[in-house]
């Protein structure tokens, strides 16, 4: 849906005075939103007791990747004019671009293994371990956004996304440490 809106806007020149900038920012925003949604599935599923939410996780994940690809495409096309040498230099030189690009690279194997047979091929355990990379991606994505806004001290939105992702990751951390303690405790009692 957001894609259709952006596409329509670009075709009809309805994205303001600087449509390139608008598209780059909007696709970045939507990547972050879908990343939040993807990571919200498990906490919501467990706390609300809604196992059927799991069905949507893969779709959210794929949308995250879809928008990050668009984001990268907009940057390298609209901003850099597909000048590969310039893009390579930009990635190497600018930490905020490097961080964003790393997040994209880390997401790629996750997107490439987002289907049932991949889970069978890798084995559920290895698949899950691989897909935990998304936690690193979340941190990198917020850092990328933070750095982008740092020059103007304009952190309101960064804090919103940062807070949401922090809560989602912290929930996992707390849960896993509880679980660990529980396991150790049960080891003792046995």
């Amino acid at each position: 849906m957001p894609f259709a809106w952006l596409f329509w806007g670009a075709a009809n020149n309805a994205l303001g005075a600087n449509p390139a900038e608008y598209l780059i920012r909007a696709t970045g925003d939507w990547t972050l939103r879908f990343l939040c949604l993807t990571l919200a599935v498990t906490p919501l599923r467990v706390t609300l007791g809604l196992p059927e939410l799991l069905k949507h996780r893969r779709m959210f994940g794929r949308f995250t990747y879809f928008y990050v690809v668009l984001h990268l495409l907009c940057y390298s096309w609209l901003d850099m004019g597909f000048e590969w040498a310039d893009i390579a230099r930009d990635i190497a030189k600018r930490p905020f671009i490097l961080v964003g690009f790393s997040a994209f690279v880390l997401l790629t194997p996750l997107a490439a293994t987002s289907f049932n047979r991949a889970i069978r091929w890798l084995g559920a355990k290895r698949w899950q371990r691989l897909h935990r990379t998304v936690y690193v991606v979340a941190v990198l994505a917020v850092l990328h956004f933070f750095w982008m806004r740092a020059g103007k001290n304009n952190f309101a939105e960064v804090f919103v996304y940062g807070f949401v992702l922090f809560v989602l990751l912290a929930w996992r951390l707390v849960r896993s440490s509880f679980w660990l303690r529980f396991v150790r405790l049960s080891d003792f009692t046995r």
Partner: protein
Amino acid sequence: MHRNLFSRSSDSGFTHPTIGDVTPQSLYLQRREWLRQVAAGAAGLSLAAWGAREAIAQVPHPGKLAPLAGGVSRVSGANTIEKITSYADASSYNNYYEFGTDKSDPAKYAHTLQTKPWSVEIEGLVKKPGRMDLDDLLKLSPLEERIYRLRCVEGWSMVIPWVGYSLAELIKRVEPLGNAKYVEFVTLADPKTMLGVHSRVLDWPYVEGLRMDEAMHPLALLSFGMYGEVLPNQNGAPVRLVVPWKYGFKSAKSLVKIRFVEKQPVNSWGRSAPQEYGFYSNVNPNVDHPRWSQASERRIGEDGLFAKKRKTLMFNGYEAQVGQLYAGMDLKKLY
């Protein structure tokens, strides 16, 4: 054998131009710029009138605000022949953080700005300090139309026909003392009418500064209007600075104080992020911003979505006029 000039043989009568004889396009364009300047400047009244007609004809008047006409400027570089950005873009895509950080915010929220009455306080190391009303400022020197490129530090640019006169006219009038080395510009920060002043994006009021020789350069403009009308609020009404060879943020809006000082002032962006924004902030394609390249720019409203960005010019294309101000300075260090 002596040759009769009037009866040339077929092989010497007309020499075909070789590729080396053809005027390169850049030189040709330079000549055109030179011709424009001559037309607008010292040579012959008839030429000047012809230039004036052309300059006025190409600036569309939006008919939204009170008209404010300016005559043709004789200042070198003040009449770029590039396509003028549409008024709609120039008045809706603005950085004016006192009205919000999004570029569409100023056009939405700047209507609260009170521009009447308005006065500018002249302070510091001058023989004639004091408060000047806007009407006095408007009458201080004949208004000119100046068509300048505007290059934002964010990597976009516009071409805007400003109305105003050289800041030097005001400076000469107030007679700076010998130890006045810099000029500091203080802008309005009214929490009642400017919602952005409540956010802590920057320290308010917004302050900018120029070295005295920069401020005295004829291209440095004290502007009261654009597109033949008074300035819209979101563009810095009622009086602002325009320094076309520097990044846009140096051109402070809605001026309330002009202060003459001995030490280099600390400008707002320099205070906020000194590693990103220097005091000079001359447009320079060779010195990148830490987070993006400054080698190219997107001309708003003109370069299509998929068009390559255009190359940014040294001193925003005003090198011939202002380059000598920075002779011998390491512009990589003093960015």
